[in-house]
């Protein structure tokens, strides 16, 4: 059994929670396994945001509801967190941040950062003091922590760096050991692992997939990918352009693929809801494209900074008319890399739109990921030099025609959003219409040659089979690894098209339990009509939070009994 310590830092937007999170994660990883996640309000300043740091002696991937140690960094955050606090929770912060009533109910350790930072000389040092305090609390190596401060502040003046190191010591020395906070056996992650968040993993995956063009319009929580790729643009030769709107973004991406680039549009559900027509354009012109949908709770503006898996249906059916598409849903950090890479390969190979579905929780959580070497194979270009008689939509036994690009070869690349003949010119011939429609739709089967297989986690003998896709991976994998009942977990990475390879897993189960972060069970519905398999139970959550391990324990226990 795992031992974990869940530390939550609660403050307001603008207090720099994200910086402490990074410092802590970077330092903790040398001594423990660690997983972090955050929840923030849709505002730039004020409100109440939290960062959760889970420390363990084994790998951890799941959001925890129950808080062991709660740092209150401002006044009005406690009420919102009440449900996550229990008898044994230790609350640390300025005395005034907790009401007298609550002080009677909970253990509180006073930590007056305002005063301490005055001592340190500047209120800006509060975060470093806190870092020192926590470092002592969980027995981190001070030399490593100092190194982290130095490297993160390397652009600052030496005296400021020194002052921060002093502030760190101040916090470190201020902490008094107490038995109230449990100790976790040290056990750091292996050398071939690294800490990374979903946004970075996916962005690097895209680079590995040859992504060299990005057109997007900012939208939380998808903007991180845009920002990461902007930062790497020059080094990796990626043309990044902020589009005037999402419609322009996807049309630009399609134009880029037409010209031989590998383009990406990153957006969220609301932005994608504007891209349907362009998706359909990719469909009929057989011009590939890759779209990243970072899900957040809808409808409409909904909860802009929260998490949900509510846009699977939209990804499945967006665009008018009928055409094939591929939908990938990484839930594990490695898969964000791998599928981020493979998306571009699949788009190029099959000349179809490929959608990568993630969500706020997945993108903004940091966890450990096994290092890897990307395969060259996925960089293979499927573009060919054209001959003078080149026909863009040549019909043959194989539904994928040779794709040329303008400027390379002796043929013309003629592409039409109207129904067209082999030469790309528009036609109204009934028979050609049917041939072209059949050609396009035939790819749906072909795509399954490259089906990204699901992972069965847990024993291959089971009564209950949990089905999850995307970001529920972490919590479900933790559940299954720890649970003793006859329950395994089928982690689906490619949600569309689904392969009949899944059927043996599904048929074996006595009870199929679909776990989804939405209100209606969109994947369960897909499973029903597409593979003719009915989920017996749907475990759904749609308040804007991810599933916590505690909730999953409770609800799966109920479901499997």
């Amino acid at each position, binding site marked *: 059994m795992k031992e974990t310590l869940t530390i939550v830092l609660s403050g307001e937007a603008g207090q720099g929670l994200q910086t402490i999170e990074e410092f802590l994660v970077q330092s903790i990883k040398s001594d423990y396994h660690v997983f972090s996640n955050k929840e923030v309000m849709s505002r730039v300043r004020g409100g109440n945001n939290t960062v959760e740091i889970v420390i363990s002696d084994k790998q951890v991937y799941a959001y925890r509801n129950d808080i062991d140690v709660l740092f209150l960094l401002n006044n009005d955050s406690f009420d919102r967190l009440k449900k996550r606090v229990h008898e044994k929770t230790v609350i640390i912060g300025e005395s005034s941040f907790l009401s007298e009533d609550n002080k009677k109910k909970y253990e509180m350790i006073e930590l007056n950062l305002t005063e301490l930072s005055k001592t340190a000389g500047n209120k800006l040092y509060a975060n470093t003091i806190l870092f020192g305090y926590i470092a002592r609390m969980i027995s981190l190596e001070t030399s490593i922590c100092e190194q982290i401060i130095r490297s993160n502040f390397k652009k600052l003046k030496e005296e400021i760096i020194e002052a921060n190191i002093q502030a760190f010591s101040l916090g470190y020395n201020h902490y008094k050991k107490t038995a109230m906070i449990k100790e976790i056996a040290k056990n750091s992650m292996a050398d071939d692992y*690294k800490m*990374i968040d979903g946004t970075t993993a996916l962005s*690097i995956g895209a*680079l*590995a997939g040859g992504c*060299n*063009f990005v*057109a997007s319009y900012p939208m939380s929580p998808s903007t991180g990918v845009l920002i990461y790729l902007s930062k*790497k*643009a*020059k*080094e*990796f*030769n*990626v*043309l990044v*352009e902020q*589009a*005037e*709107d999402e*419609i*322009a*973004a996807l*049309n*630009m*991406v*399609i*134009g*880029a693929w*037409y*010209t*031989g*680039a590998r*383009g990406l549009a990153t957006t969220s559900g609301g932005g994608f809801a504007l891209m349907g*027509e*362009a998706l359909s*354009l990719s469909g009929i*012109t057989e011009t590939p494209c890759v779209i990243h949908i970072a899900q957040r709770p809808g409808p409409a503006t909904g909860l802009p900074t929260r998490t949900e898996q509510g846009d699977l249906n939209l990804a499945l059916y967006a665009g008018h008319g009928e055409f094939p598409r591929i939908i990938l849903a990484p839930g594990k950090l490695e898969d964000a890399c791998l599928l981020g890479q493979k998306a571009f390969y699949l788009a190029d190979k099959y000349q179809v739109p490929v959608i990568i579905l993630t969500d706020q929780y997945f993108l903004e959580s940091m966890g450990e990921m096994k*290092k*890897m*070497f*990307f395969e*060259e194979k996925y*960089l293979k270009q499927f*573009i060919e030099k054209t001959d003078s008689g080149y026909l863009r939509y040549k019909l043959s036994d194989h539904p994928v025609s040779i794709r040329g*690009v*303008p*400027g*390379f*070869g*002796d043929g*013309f*690349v*003629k*592409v*039409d*959003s*109207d129904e067209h003949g082999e030469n790309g*010119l*528009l036609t109204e011939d009934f028979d050609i219409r049917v041939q072209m429609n059949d050609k396009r739709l035939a790819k749906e089967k072909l795509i399954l040659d490259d089906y990204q297989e699901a992972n069965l986690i847990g024993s291959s003998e089971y009564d209950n089979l949990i089905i999850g896709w995307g970001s529920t991976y972490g919590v479900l994998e933790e559940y299954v690894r720890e649970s003793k009942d006859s329950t395994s977990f089928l982690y689906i990475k490619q949600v569309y098209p689904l392969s009949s390879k899944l059927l043996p897993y599904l048929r074996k189960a006595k009870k199929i339990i679909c776990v989804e972060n939405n209100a209606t069970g969109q994947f369960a519905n897909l499973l029903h009509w597409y593979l003719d398999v009915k989920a017996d139970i749907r475990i759904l959550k749609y308040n804007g939070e991810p599933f916590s391990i505690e909730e999953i324990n409770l609800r799966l226990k109920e479901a499997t009994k």
Partner: protein
Amino acid sequence: MKPFEFENEIDIAWCPGCGNYSIRKALIRALQELEADPLHTVLVSGIGQAAKMPQYVNCHFFNGLHGRGLPVAVSVKACNPHLTVIAEGGDGDMYGEGGNHFIHNIRRNPDITHLVHNNMIYGLTKGQASPTSQKGFVTNVQVDGVINQPFNPLAVALSLGATFIARAFSGDIDQLTDIIKAAVKHKGYALIDIFQPCVTFNKTNNFAWYKENTYSLDSHYDSSDKENAAKKVMETEKYPLGIIYRENGVKTFVEKINIYQDNKQPIVCRNRDLGKVNQLIND
């Protein structure tokens, strides 16, 4: 077979007498006279009668969605600066549905030529008002006549810093040819708003009307004078024809993009260094 023409006769779907035929003639002639290489020329269009043009000119084309020609054209040029890119469509296509791309792409100053057939009507959908339809113009939807101020593409383009602004009339093929040639040669975004009679649905703004309500800028006209251009683009009693404004030396989109600063290669020719990506993930 001359460049941009077809081996066999082609079936053109426009109405007999439509101004689009002349625009096609001028476009092909301009490209031929410029000795443009069809294999390095891409026509990008949206949907509409005007937007059918790529079907009738023999070079690369991307005939996209109604209103969405520009974003495709701009990214084609950005991904391969060696290509000559022409975006073409109707007034509904480019100023109506595509209005947001119109205003924002001018700000980018991409090195493309933008041909807009201005027939003051939606032709393909059989006769509703377009953004440039004149007040009072009666259609099957605007049954009591158009009530909105017509869109002034030239004035908008000028106010956003466009570097080549012209108006032409399909009835004057020679002038149109010359303007197209100048536009294609221009380094930067070049807009030509082309008056084009729709003989079927617009009985008001017909050939005679355009003839009567336009005049050509004379050879003394100084197209580099912005203040004067600002007045010209507002003229509506008689619309001036010709290159109304031209500004050289403004950096184009590609010239400004960071990845083209030290490397002029099209994106498709550049290889991804997977080793460097592996470093990112493994350090």
